[in-house]
């Protein structure tokens, strides 16, 4: 790429393949992803008096309300319930905020998409990255709470990245799917705000899954990949006596529906986005 190589011999015609999800080289892709995510993240703190604190306020407020409701009114008897709730809300925040921002991201970046050759994949992924940065900062606060609450650190805390990676990958896949579909059907974004709220309750965030008797409803919840991820997180991080994901599901075999949905969602997200990417500019 340097100027010295610009001899006529270097002028080899290469086919222009048109727009794609990742077009323009791998290094450019990751540079752009990093730069855009980092600047978007910084931007969210600029111009506000309390900056970063605001990103903590939302989960904390929800946390405070739910804590009062479920310990004072419904009187849940769950070990370490306050920190479990806080941890779950912050990690679920990655999914909720990531997908929520990504769904309309491609439409919002219309100018870039229509006027530049830009790797389309960067756009929804950078929304997820911003949510990831926010969550990482919040997790620091969460772990201070967890220690202050008196939870003993265990070696399984080291497995936290596995949990986060599973949530992160799913968030990316859903973001790709939604952002590509939203270009075609503008009401996907509206539907998703409702669906994301439904998911908050269809995932054991504010209650542990063992509150439920075996039933059709429980089977549905167990087919939600997030259910098993959050249950395993509870066992690893908050309460070592809590059942693992395997025992929650009732055996390895019963984890298959959730695992299948997880894998299919990931493949579908990548496939749909890849298929739509070359046409996004025309559809805006």
């Amino acid at each position, binding site marked *: 790429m340097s100027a010295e190589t*610009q001899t006529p011999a270097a002028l080899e015609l290469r086919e222009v393949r048109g727009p794609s999800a990742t077009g323009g080289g791998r290094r450019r892709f990751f540079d752009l992803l990093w730069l855009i995510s980092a600047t978007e993240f910084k931007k969210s703190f600029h111009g506000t008096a309390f900056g970063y604190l605001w990103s903590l306020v939302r989960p904390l407020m929800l946390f405070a309300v739910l804590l009062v409701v479920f310990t004072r009114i419904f009187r849940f008897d769950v070990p370490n319930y306050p920190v479990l709730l806080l941890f779950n809300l912050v990690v679920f925040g990655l999914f909720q905020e990531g997908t929520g921002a990504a769904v309309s991201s491609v439409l919002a970046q219309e100018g870039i998409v229509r006027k530049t050759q830009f790797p389309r994949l960067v756009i929804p992924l950078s929304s997820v990255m911003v949510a990831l940065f926010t969550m990482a900062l919040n997790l620091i606060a969460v772990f201070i709470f967890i220690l202050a609450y008196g939870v003993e650190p265990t070696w399984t805390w080291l497995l936290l990245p596995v949990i986060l990676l599973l949530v992160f990958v799913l968030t990316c896949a859903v973001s790709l799917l939604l952002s590509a579909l939203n270009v075609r059907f*503008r009401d996907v974004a509206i539907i998703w705000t409702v669906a994301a709220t439904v998911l908050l309750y269809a995932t054991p965030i504010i209650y542990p899954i063992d509150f439920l008797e075996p039933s059709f409803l429980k089977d549905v919840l167990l087919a939600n990949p997030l259910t098993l991820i959050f249950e395993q997180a509870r066992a690893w991080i908050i309460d070592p006596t809590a059942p693992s994901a395997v025992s929650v599901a009732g055996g390895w075999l019963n984890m298959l529906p959730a695992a299948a949905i997880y894998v299919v969602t990931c493949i579908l997200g990548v496939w749909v986005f890849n298929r739509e990417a070359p046409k996004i500019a025309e559809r805006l």
Partner: protein
Amino acid sequence: MAVETSQDGPAATRGRDFEAEPVVIEARGVSKSFRLSVNKINSLKELVTTFSQSDYKELRALRDVSFDVHRGEFFGIVGRNGSGKSTLLKVLASIYAADAGTVRMAGRLAPFIELGVGFNPELTARENVELNGVMMGLERREARGRLGAVLEFAELEEFVDMKLKNYSSGMLVRLAFSVMIQSDAEILLIDEVLAVGDAAFQQKCADVFHEMRDSERTVILVTHDMGAVEHYCHRAMLLHDGEVKAIGDPGEVARKYLRLNFESAPSSGDDSLGEVADVVVEDAWLEDDAGERVTNLEKGKDLHFCAELEAKRDVEGPTFGFTFANPDGVEVTGFGVPLGDLPERVTAGQKLQIRTRIENRLAPGRYVVRCWIHRHRNISDIVLYSPHVLDFVVFGKDEPGVAFFEHEVRFDVKNGGEK
């Protein structure tokens, strides 16, 4: 219509033989269609309710377009609105995917087709220059290293840490242009860049364009400013309805473009009224004081506007009016053929010529000449309305307002008052 090609002409006389240069852009049989559904489906409900009817209109934006551009060439693409020229640029820039055909390219391409795209108003100039550099394919370190040169060219060094949202529009354009110039892209795609900025900036653009014309860089300029085409381009291509109508000498291509414009102006519904083309504008042009055809005019120099019309049918009591509109659509001035000179009738096949000398008080900028022809001496009985028979640029020092008038200004400071 057959594609007429003329490889020599002024391009060769401009001192560089591009035939010998390697081809850096090669397009072969590029086609692109858009499926426009008559009712655009934008929501799921519409999808469900309109599922059965597939009301699609196929718009063929590009049909079998082939051309080569050699290294170092300044290549113009001209055509009316909707002729496919912007679509072609987007295919070249990998923004659209072609349906058929191949495009091959050698060298690094600037991925922008418009100035300032990708700027984030919430970020400072420093951050934006880095972001833009990375978009151009530079490494982040390289992109940061370029900051000094970019700001120096744009003369914006003091504002490096100011957010772009606080920039004036002039500063923004300067920065955007500078980013483009300072990128080391070997191929630049430019869509109507000359239309941006104030007169002083347009002048700067013009200088840079002249420089680029003589550099190793390959530039593709899409425009409908025939002045710019004749000024800068070594070669030009005329697109019409997505087809290549001509490739070759820019002057010739510009004339073909104008001719094509007038042929289709009365009948094509997109920007003209007149249902029946009883009279058509065959040709329209400007002359300088020496009687030479020109496309640009210096501020204050008399305007010699000329037009040739042909009557296609008999018209009773015709009247002819022309106006000059600036880019804001304001009709700054105009004229009509005096009543005393008007014939009682024109008959089919008759040619009419109009020659004028108009005192030029137009402020610098681009002007479009519009034409009205009525019959029965009645201005509501329109035979022809053509909103664009000619466009031209008045250049010179910028002044406020839409017109300028000779003026003398006296300025005194009166002493006195409290002392």
